[in-house]
């Protein structure tokens, strides 16, 4: 603490500068969230609405599908992003920047657009369908199934995770790998014993973000109009089509808690605040 005089005299100013943020936040987030919690508990089921996510088979199924989908996407994305990300970080070759640009530019696509991309690839007139018909005679259409949803979620997760992995790979201590090699470790052993453990914090933080984003993703599922019910879609249908407002409120709050927990885990794993990429 330097000049105490300066800090003390500044204080009223600092409070004044903070006020707008606090007011907006209180009025438009805290208040509504409290109301949401209240509405959730004020329906015909009362507080039991919060347990409905596990007690009612339909919602429970939805929760499980969403958890499974998110977990699956996270694992796949981490694997794909690690292979591609470490490779790009460590090698220079012509076209490297172009590849990196291609891999990261879908970062800001909204879920709807991603859904459309999946339809382009795997829909009824999709590219994969055309290719598979040429090769096997059977047209492969999977945009509207779990596989399509998975593809969509992969589409928006890969760019984010690749960036994080590349940043972490840059910081790896090469001496550790050289030490392992000097003792006779093969390339695979170096990956298993030095590189993967070294990337662990990045895996945890990027993985948790990926998981949280997948849990809360709505636009992709909406566009693909699948029969697979993911939680955000369930909440949406409860609210708009069935007017089960209390239940929708309760479910959305539970979902919010789950995603918040995942992100809190990411922050503690990374040790610092979560990377601010879209």
């Amino acid at each position: 603490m330097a000049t105490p005089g300066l800090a003390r005299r500044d204080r009223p100013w600092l409070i004044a500068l903070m006020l707008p943020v606090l007011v907006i936040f209180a009025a438009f987030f805290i208040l509504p969230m409290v109301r949401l919690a209240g509405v959730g508990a004020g329906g015909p089921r009362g507080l039991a609405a919060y347990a409905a996510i596990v007690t009612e088979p339909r919602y429970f199924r939805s929760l499980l599908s969403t958890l499974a989908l998110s977990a699956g996407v996270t694992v796949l994305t981490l694997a794909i992003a690690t292979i591609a990300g470490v490779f790009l970080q460590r090698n220079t070759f012509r076209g490297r920047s172009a590849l990196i640009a291609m891999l990261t530019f879908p970062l800001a696509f909204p879920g709807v657009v991603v859904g459309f991309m999946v339809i382009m690839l795997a829909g009824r007139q999709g590219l994969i369908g055309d290719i598979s018909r040429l090769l096997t005679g059977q047209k492969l259409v999977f945009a509207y199934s779990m596989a399509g949803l998975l593809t969509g979620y992969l589409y928006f997760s890969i760019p984010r995770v690749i960036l994080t992995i590349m940043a972490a790979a840059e910081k790896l201590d090469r001496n550790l790998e050289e030490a392992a090699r000097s003792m006779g470790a093969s390339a695979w052993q170096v990956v298993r014993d030095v590189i993967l453990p070294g990337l662990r914090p990045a895996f945890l933080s990027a993985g948790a973000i990926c998981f949280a984003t997948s849990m809360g993703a709505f636009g992709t599922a909406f566009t693909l109009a699948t029969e697979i019910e993911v939680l955000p879609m369930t909440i949406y249908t409860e609210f708009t089509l069935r007017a089960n407002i209390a239940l929708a409120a309760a479910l959305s709050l539970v979902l919010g808690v789950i995603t918040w927990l995942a992100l809190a885990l990411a922050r503690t794993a990374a040790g610092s605040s979560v990377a601010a990429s879209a």
Partner: protein
Amino acid sequence: MSEGGVAIRLERCGKTFDDGTRAVAPLDLEIAAGETIVLLGPSGCGKTTTLRMIAGLEAPDPGGRVRFGEVDVTEIPIERRNVGMVFQSYALFPNMTVADNVAYGLRVRRVEAGARAARLEEMLAMMKIGELRHRHVDQLSGGQKQRVALARALAVRPRVLLLDEPLTALDAKLRDVLRIEIDALLRRLGMTAVYVTHDQAEAMALGDRIVVMSHGAVEQVGRPREIYFTPANRFVVEFVGTMNRLRGVARDGYLEVAGGRVPWRHGVAGDVEVLFRPERAAVVEAGAGGLTGRVLTAFFLGDRTRLVVEGISDTPLIVETSARTEFKPGQEVHVAIDSDALLRLAR
């Protein structure tokens, strides 16, 4: 317990990096089996790059060859060269305990569990780190980490031990302690060792021979005494130890300088420049045949006083004397120089 070692030969090994910088000019070097050779020089001189070429982490430019004994290992990558490497930053695996770190090389070579455990105990005992075996790397002090790094490198019985500035990251006292330990260790093992450092005191204490390098080239190779007493050129002179410079005119058997004259036996006449080490000069009483000068600064170092004396030559000289007498700036002082100590340089 002598492990023995292999002779190493570098032939025309140079290294140019992808961006065009030439780190090392093609050099030839012969290292005898069991010898400890020190690569000494300032940062950027190419000593670490040369070490990495011996290790197999860098490939020499086309035409360069590295031999271990009779075998040409130039094309063999580090994984199969069987070298032990110790890094300045220790490079210990943070996800493993001390015991796992030391045993890593054995595990990678699929040494069976019994033999592995026995060798592990041997290494832990040799480096005196037995009680640290279950600790994790971040719980160790710098000196402990260095011992673990040495144990790990030696566990696999390498043919040569390569050390890249292992003591630079430690504080002075610890450095002295570990330097003695490493010296004893290398002597006991009788292993070939290549040691990189920028600290000339370390080099002279540890090396059987020293290779002084600068700007990618070898300036001089020799035993520590040769390097110190008969430096080959100006760079070696200025890098190793302190040197004083005397400039004057040589005639009639004397070298005449600003502060007086000294006997001159070199036979050359005219304007000359010679060098001498501070310890070959002494402060004497007036009239004892010394050169006369004035004290510019006096540094009291406890066990001795270091005087910076001007007026004897065109540049100030450094002379050391016992600390009992106090010298003040501006005071007149007389310096006698051992005439055998005067060194004339070709370059």
